[in-house]
Structure formats: structure tokens, C-alpha cells
């Protein structure tokens, strides 16, 4: 019987001809990732194993992105643990402030993660790399420590859910963020729990890589293990310029079996807003229109890429952020920041009254650089709107794509982009 792309990658890394959902396998890893929150715990566990060396210094990536540039003394100490370890182990993939970006923007951009890879990361949004046709999934620090030591991890082969997007036309301003929010609204935050989500169809082929990363990124928000795409010409074009090692393209067989197949018409998907306090609380932007906000955050590993900034710049060009709104923009990496600068978008942002930051996770997880007070409300292009996610437990986060966020920053309340683009 045929296999899905997920099953093929897992089988190949476990040295097996065939795997089936439910099977427990032990598999070889191509990349093991940790950040400044999960890394220190993983490094401590690594020490407990009595190991002195990681399995491969080119296959372990440490990304200090959450509380950097160091937010306070405590986070400086955590980052120091990462720095010392990276140096001791002579890791190839370690970046300091000034070079670092948000991990899930940075690793694909730098060609660290590639199609066909099997990747674990001590960060739940590791599933982002599924956009490249890799099997990538989030784990905790202990799994990460064992992975750094042995280069292997156990997996339960997941069932696959297939989401087929029919048609290649979208409503104006609709992007990957809306597609994935639409799905999460449909199946719920545990609708794909333990499973692989596979995205396919004409609608997906029409999407840029940046939009695919956004979709794969939020697979975890439906509880999934991975959100995966079959590589196509766009994937290969993206990868060719970046890869420094071999990679392999896997495709799902025609007779592969799926637990369920969802058919969606691209034109049916309106601009989405997820209401507090779960990403599944989705409504169309028109239903959210008029909701007053205090802050707008554009960036994160979900929507901090070049195209996201382009849309934002197009909407903000020649306009002003509403005087009662704090609008913050976080480019995902230094390369994205620099390109935005060269294209004049940073100037557009600053002229509009935006605070532009060096790449960091910052407010996305309520870390620093834009925390909400009691009763405040933010519209954000991030991926989670849990209770207290961006600050005070009685603050609120709404989620949207960058076009809706930028338009709402101008208006001071949630609004459809057509209202300000006139």
C-alpha cells in the first residue's frame, strides 16, 4: 500500500521499507533544535546523561530568540548557558544578537533545515519546517537532550489528515494565515491531535513559500504533530539558493491512506480573526469589525517574513497609526529586516508611527518588548491567544493576518483592509 509523505520520511529515517500509523519507531535525526527557554533545561539533562559531545556538531542548532537581546539578568544567565555550550561543542548553528532571528524564520532561511529532513525541536512551532516537505515536530527539553546525545528519537507514526484546497483564487488580502485559521476554526484546537496535517491542491500550489510557512507554523494550534507540504518548484527554488548539503524530495503516493480528507474551496475563505482565548474561536473580519484595540503586533515566526512586511508596508504607506495605538513590528530575521530597509519599508513604518524592533520573540509569548496591562487588548499576527499570552492574565489577544493588523492599526479598531485602502 502507498505511503504519505510523512510516512515515507519516517520510514526512511528508521531504515524501514514501510511504516503504518500507530507504529512506534526509532529514527535518525537530521537537526535537533533548542532555544533560550528550552535549551538550558536540555543542556542540563544532556549533562545528566554523562555525555561530553553532541552526536554531530553540524546537526544541533541553538537559537537564543525568546528573551534576547537579554531582557534581564535571569535571561542573560540562561543565554549564557547556551553560549558556553555552543562554544564548548563548537556548534555550527549558533547565532548571537545581531545575527540571530526568530528560530522558525531563521533555520529555513539559512538552509539549516531542508526537504526530506527529520527534525525535532524543543519548541512547539518546529512544525513550521513542514512547509519545506520536512517532517518536523516539537518536543520537550528531555527529548531534545536525548536527541542531541544520540541523534535519534522515538516516534509514533501519526495518522494523516489531508486538506485539499480547490481553486487558486482567493478573496482580496486572504493569505496563508486565513487558510490555517479557517481550518483550526473548523476542526478545533485538538482536531488534529497526534496527527499529521497534509496540505494539498491547486490553492496550495498557488501560495508562496512565506504563506506556506505561516500555515505549517500553526499546525500545532490544531494539536498536530506536523503540518506538511509536498515540495514543488517553489520549494525547490527557495531551497536551491540555501542548501549546503544534500536533501531528498518525498511525495505522497496516489494510493496513500488518510484518516480523513477535507475539501475546501479557496474562494469561500474570508479574512479571519481568532477571538480570545483560543485560536479556534475564529470569525470573519467583518464580524470582528469595530472591536477597540490598544496594541498591534506584526511579526513572529508566523507572520514575520518578507511578504508579511510587504503587505504591511503597502497598507501603511503614507498613512498614520491611530494616535491611541501602539503598533510594533518585529521582522523575523536580520536578512528580512535588511531587505525591508533596502526596499524603503522600514522608512514607511517609522513615518507611520510604528516601533520597529530587532528580531525577537518579544511580546508574542509575553516575554518583553510590548507587554499588555490589565484589560488591554492586542491584535497580533502571532499564533496563540491563550489567557495571559501577551501579558496580564486579564488582557486579550486577537489573531489575524498582517493586512488586517496593519489596517486596524490605522483605524484604532479591528477593520477590514478595504476600509483603509480606499
Amino acid at each position: 500500500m502507498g505511503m504519505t509523505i510523512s510516512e515515507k520520511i519516517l520510514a526512511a529515517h528508521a531504515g524501514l521499507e514501510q511504516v503504518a500509523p500507530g507504529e512506534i519507531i526509532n529514527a535518525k535525526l537530521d537537526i535537533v533544535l533548542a532555544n533560550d527557554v528550552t535549551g538550558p533545561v536540555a543542556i542540563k539533562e544532556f549533562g545528566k546523561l554523562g555525555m561530553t559531545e553532541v552526536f554531530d556538531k553540524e546537526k544541533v542548532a541553538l537559537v537564543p530568540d525568546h528573551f534576547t537581546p537579554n531582557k534581564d539578568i535571569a535571561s542573560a544567565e540562561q543565554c549564557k548557558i547556551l553560549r558556553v555550550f555552543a562554544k564548548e561543542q563548537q556548534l555550527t548553528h549558533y547565532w548571537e544578537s545581531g545575527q540571530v532571528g526568530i528560530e522558525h524564520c531563521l533555520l529555513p532561511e539559512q538552509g539549516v533545515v531542508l526537504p526530506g529532513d527529520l527534525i525535532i525541536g524543543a519548541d512547539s512551532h518546529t512544525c513550521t519546517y513542514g512547509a519545506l516537505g520536512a517532517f518536523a515536530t516539537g518536543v520537550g527539553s528531555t527529548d531534545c537532550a536525548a536527541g542531541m546525545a544520540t541523534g535519534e528519537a522515538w516516534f509514533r507514526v501519526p495518522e494523516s489528515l489531508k486538506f485539499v484546497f480547490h481553486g487558486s483564487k482567493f478573496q482580496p488580502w486572504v493569505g496563508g494565515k486565513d487558510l490555517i485559521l479557517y481550518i483550526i476554526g473548523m476542526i478545533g484546537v485538538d482536531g488534529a491531535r497526534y496527527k499529521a496535517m497534509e496540505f494539498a491542491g491547486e490553492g496550495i500550489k498557488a501560495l508562496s513559500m512565506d504563506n506556506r510557512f505561516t500555515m505549517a507554523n500553526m499546525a500545532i494550534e490544531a494539536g498536530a504533530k506536523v503540518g506538511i507540504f509536498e515540495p514543488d518548484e517553489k520549494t525547490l527554488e527557495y531551497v536551491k539558493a540555501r542548501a549546503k548539503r544534500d536533501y531528498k524530495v518525498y511525495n505522497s503516493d496516489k494510493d496513500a491512506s488518510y484518516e480523513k480528507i477535507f475539501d475546501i474551496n479557496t474562494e469561500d475563505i474570508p479574512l479571519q480573526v481568532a477571538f480570545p482565548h483560543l485560536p479556534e474561536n475564529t470569525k470573519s473580519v467583518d464580524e470582528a469589525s469595530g472591536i477597540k484595540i490598544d496594541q498591534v503586533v506584526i511579526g513572529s515566526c508566523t507572520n514575520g517574513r518578507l511578504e508579511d512586511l510587504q503587505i504591511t508596508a503597502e497598507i501603511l504607506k503614507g498613512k498614520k497609526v491611530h494616535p491611541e495605538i501602539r503598533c510594533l513590528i518585529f521582522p523575523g530575521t536580520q536578512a528580512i529586516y535588511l531587505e525591508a530597509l533596502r526596499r524603503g519599508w522600514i522608512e514607511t513604518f517609522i513615518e507611520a508611527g510604528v516601533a520597529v524592533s530587532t528580531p525577537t520573540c518579544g511580546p508574542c509569548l509575553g516575554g518583553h518588548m510590548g507587554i499588555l496591562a490589565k484589560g488591554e487588548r492586542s491584535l497580533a499576527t502571532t499564533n496563540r491567544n491563550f489567557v495571559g499570552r501577551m501579558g496580564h492574565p486579564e488582557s486579550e489577544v486577537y489573531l489575524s493576518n498582517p493586512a488586517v493588523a496593519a489596517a486596524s492599526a490605522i483605524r484604532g479598531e479591528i477593520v477590514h483592509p478595504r476600509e483603509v485602502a480606499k
Partner: protein
Amino acid sequence: MGKAWKFGHDIDTDVIIPARYLNRSELDFLASHCMEDADPAFAQNVKEGDIIVGGKNFGCGSSREHAPLAIKAAGIKVIIADSYARIFYRNSLNIGMPILECPEAVQGIENGDEVNVDLETGRIENITKKAFFQARPFPPFMQELIKAGGLIPYVKEHKKNA
């Protein structure tokens, strides 16, 4: 035997341990802020041996191992829920925090009930309500992990054999 602390569906890792405390990873510190955004009184009043009862998709959200670590350090003996988010499930077992899936027990236990759990058999007794429940046993490979005392000792053992 311990007291049940009952929470709802989709209890996420930001509620279990908010990110504002993730600039540190000492266990006592994490325990002192455990469940803070769901029940600010939890950390002060929880006693060694108490249990947490949750709904579906317990532990959804981030991969922070700080979440099960905080719960374990707070003295919780076992978590019983309808279902768990994938990473939380894996993390809990990896650090030796026992978790059981048992929707019947979740229904049959109220906040404050006295509950006894036999981890080996998965038998759950609600002493207050004089009711018994049977939780699904762990899959075999998980039992092996748990027997070894979590992933780190498990890997250590296997390394020796290799």
C-alpha cells in the same frame, strides 16, 4: 490519597506556567507560580500527593517542559484528564510525571474530592463519592520508559548496552 484540583478543557501551557516566569528554570520557583492564571490560590494551597483533574486536550500550547516540571514540583502525584496535547504527554512521561486518560473519572470527580490512584493498575478511587474508575493503561513502550524512570535513565541504560 490526595485532594482533587479540577480544571476545564484545553488547559494550555501558558496557564500552567506563564511565559513571564520562563526566564528562570529552578523547580521551586516554577512550582510557586504553577497554574497561576487559572487559579491564583493553587500554588499556596496544593499539598504533596494532591491530583489534578483536567478536561480534554490538557497541556496544549508550547513545548515548555517547565509545565509538567512545575506541576510535579508543586507536589501533584498524578494528572487525570480526558485527553492530553501531544507534546505535554510526551514531556510528562519523559520527566516522570504520571498522567492518566480517563474521561469517566473526570466526570466522576469534583473539585475537592479525596482521590486515591494506583499508578500500576490505573485504578482510580473517589473516596468522597465511593466510586471506582479504570484508566487506560500506558502503551508498552511507555511502560518501559516509566520503568527506567524517564527518558534520561532510559537512554543511559541503552547506551551502556550498546
